[in-house]
């Protein structure tokens, strides 16, 4: 028997769980993140002695974010294994996070016996029903012999086309029963999934290229689709050939290096002033794998009204959803841009670039060190000390926006953030997943004091696996972003934002056996940061920053970039029309 067929040939005495694990091994799965429970015991049992390393997390949400972080860094699916009922429902936030940001993860859930389904059995939850709106696809396995086909389909579906989470619900009797299928590598049966990797239509690209002719103020907008298809090199070629400035969404960070002279950094609600000025004044905007999210276009009626709008997206349903483009191409960003660059010529953008240089000089990102330690200083110092080379995972809130502004990314898969879902508690476990994916890379989790406390128990996971993750806690003792809104739009009537009772984060870290650093003065910042980043092993850096700082620039939700404010307004502001 040759090696290949021994891989796909099931063993005689295999059960469903063993067939499942064998299939995952055959796909080259390195890690499974998860937490056990009754209904999942057969699967955990099958992992004993497997090549796959099982990483026991302290909560199922942490497991999903770790798989997500791993997937964003490697481009390979992250796999999660949990039990039924509450174990399964605890993954919902992580599944939503992966869905909103198009991240390939596979969530395997244990389930009660098939004979007990729908009878309120102990730890029964209809998890495939609960998650239906937030998965790319899902399965409830009813036949042991279907396991290899379903796993193969899940593996294929989650990472092709527009990636996303796939859930596989596995009743205990199905994983326990003998496997009598013929192959571990059967044919897939997904006749409706033809659109896995759409080839872009040449004619659409030709049509799109024509719009560039004679334009003087082009703008390239890089989104997560560019990162997912690794379009960076092609975009660089296109930008340099056109002489076009480039801006990026929160999730598009780094795919076009933010240190490149043509980069304007992030645009949108808390984007740079110059990126938003470019948005107002451009005569052509090309979205490369961005879905014109409401964080960047605010008010659709005022969005780039005078500019030709071009859209590249792998997902046809994104075309016309928010913005009606003048031309569009459905396809992988990299493939499309590689073709497009051949069809366009240099544009006369000298004046446009001068205008951008003026805005960069006039409205730079800035902070003061005179009134105490600020989050901006901490993050800027982190950027400088790590020379911009760290993989950064952020949580959600003010620190996330400051990190996006001050930690300039040069690689798309070196920036991890929950963009679409805005999931607090994402940053730290995502950093752990990233460290598993890139064991030799410096990984920094930049988190707030609020979000960190939602998933901090994964300090155990870091300790057990000796992962040298650096956790930078920006502690302003508030849910800062909401406090900022309440200050600016709700007469400073603070409600539900004061995080009194925060723990001593250094002692907390030490109680997990992890080194803690502390800083609360501007003059300490650099030396503490140096020491912490050079520390061999995991550590927590507790940065106590001034409490009532605000993120600027800011465009109130529901408004266009015209309404951007770059510093604290003196007059009262009207309540924003956008949702959040």
């Amino acid at each position, binding site marked *: 028997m040759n090696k290949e067929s021994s891989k796909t040939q099931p063993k005689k005495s295999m059960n469903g769980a063993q067939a499942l694990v064998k299939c995952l091994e055959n796909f080259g799965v390195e890690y499974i993140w998860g937490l056990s429970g009754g209904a999942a015991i057969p699967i955990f049992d099958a992992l004993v002695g497997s090549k796959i390393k099982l990483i026991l997390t302290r909560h199922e949400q942490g497991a999903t974010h770790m798989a997500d972080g791993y997937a964003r860094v490697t481009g390979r699916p992250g796999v999660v294994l949990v039990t039924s009922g509450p174990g399964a429902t605890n993954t919902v936030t992580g599944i939503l996070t992966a869905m909103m940001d198009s991240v390939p993860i596979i969530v395997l859930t244990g389930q009660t016996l098939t004979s007990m389904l729908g009878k309120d059995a102990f730890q029964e939850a209809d998890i*495939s*029903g609960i998650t*239906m*709106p937030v998965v*790319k*696809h*899902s399965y*409830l396995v*009813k036949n042991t012999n279907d396991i290899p086909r379903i796993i193969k389909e899940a593996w294929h*579906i989650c990472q092709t086309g527009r990636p996303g989470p796939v859930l596989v619900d596995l009743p205990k009797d199905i994983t326990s029963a003998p496997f009598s299928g013929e192959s571990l590598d059967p044919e897939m*049966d*997904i*006749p*409706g*999934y033809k*659109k896995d990797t759409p080839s872009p239509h040449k004619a659409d690209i030709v049509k799109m290229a024509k719009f560039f002719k004679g334009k003087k103020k082009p703008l390239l907008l890089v989104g997560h689709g560019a990162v997912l298809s690794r379009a960076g090199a092609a975009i660089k070629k296109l930008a340099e050939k056109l002489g076009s400035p480039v801006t990026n969404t929160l999730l598009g960070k780094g795919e076009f290096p933010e240190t490149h002279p043509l980069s304007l950094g992030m645009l949108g609600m808390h984007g740079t002033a110059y990126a938003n000025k470019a948005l107002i004044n451009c005569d052509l905007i090309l979205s490369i794998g961005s879905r014109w999210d409401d964080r960047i276009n605010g008010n659709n009626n005022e969005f780039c009204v005078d500019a030709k709008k071009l859209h590249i997206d792998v*997902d*046809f*349903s994104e075309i*016309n*959803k928010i913005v009606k483009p003048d031309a569009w191409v459905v396809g992988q960003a990299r493939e499309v841009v590689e073709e497009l660059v051949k069809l366009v010529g240099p544009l006369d953008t000298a004046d446009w670039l001068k205008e951008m240089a003026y805005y960069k000089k006039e409205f730079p990102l800035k902070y003061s060190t005179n009134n105490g330690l600020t989050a901006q200083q901490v993050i800027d110092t982190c950027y400088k000390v790590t020379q911009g080379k760290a993989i950064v995972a952020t949580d959600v809130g003010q620190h996330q926006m400051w990190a996006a502004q001050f930690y300039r990314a040069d690689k798309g898969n070196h920036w991890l953030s929950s963009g679409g879902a805005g999931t607090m508690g994402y940053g730290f476990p995502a950093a752990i997943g990233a460290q598993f994916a890139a064991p030799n890379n410096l990984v920094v989790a930049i988190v707030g004091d609020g979000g960190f406390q939602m998933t901090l128990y994964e300090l155990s996971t870091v300790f057990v696996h000796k992962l040298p993750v650096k956790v930078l806690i920006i502690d302003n003792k508030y849910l800062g972003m909401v406090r900022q809104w309440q200050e600016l739009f709700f007469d400073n009537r603070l409600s539900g934002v004061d995080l009194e009772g925060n723990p001593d984060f250094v002692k907390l870290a030490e109680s997990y056996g992890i080194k803690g650093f502390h800083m609360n003065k501007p003059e300490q910042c650099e030396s503490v940061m140096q020491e912490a980043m050079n520390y061999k092993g995991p550590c927590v850096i507790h940065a106590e920053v001034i409490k009532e700082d605000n993120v600027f620039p800011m465009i109130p939700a529901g408004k266009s970039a015209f309404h951007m404010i770059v510093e604290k307004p003196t007059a009262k502001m009207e309540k924003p029309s956008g949702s959040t």
Partner: protein
Amino acid sequence: MSKLPLHTISVLVANKPGVLVRIALVFARRGYNIDSLVVSPTVNPKFSRMTITAKGDLETLEQIIKNVNKLIDVIHCGEHPANTVEKELALLKTKASPAVKAFVAKNTRKFHVRIDDASEGCYIIEQTGTTAELDEFEALIRKYGILEMIRTGKILITRGKETT
């Protein structure tokens, strides 16, 4: 409320569990009210045909069709092609009376109606036709009193060689 246009959407799906729920979720999330929904087998036992009529604006319909098409178990989804034969079947229960009997007899040809059952003083009248024809007959027979009514919802198929 303004009158929203009625659309007929034809969906070819793989016979997999949960496919109906997934499709219904796409409609519900975007505020589309489903008026009727027919699921029926096709000549290939692996696939089923859903014929859905629903009310809503065109822009949302475009999003719905694209998102239904994205579902893994959906082979094809589209607003129905113009060149189709469409039919619906209704069963109407009325009190049995000579007047109703005469009325049905008079309209047998025009509306394709007939009395299927007469028991315990009730008639069950069967009608096949287009949705518009069913609506029209219902309005006419209303004056005799309708005790109960049930309709299958619209089904349609394209004319000629083109598949639906």
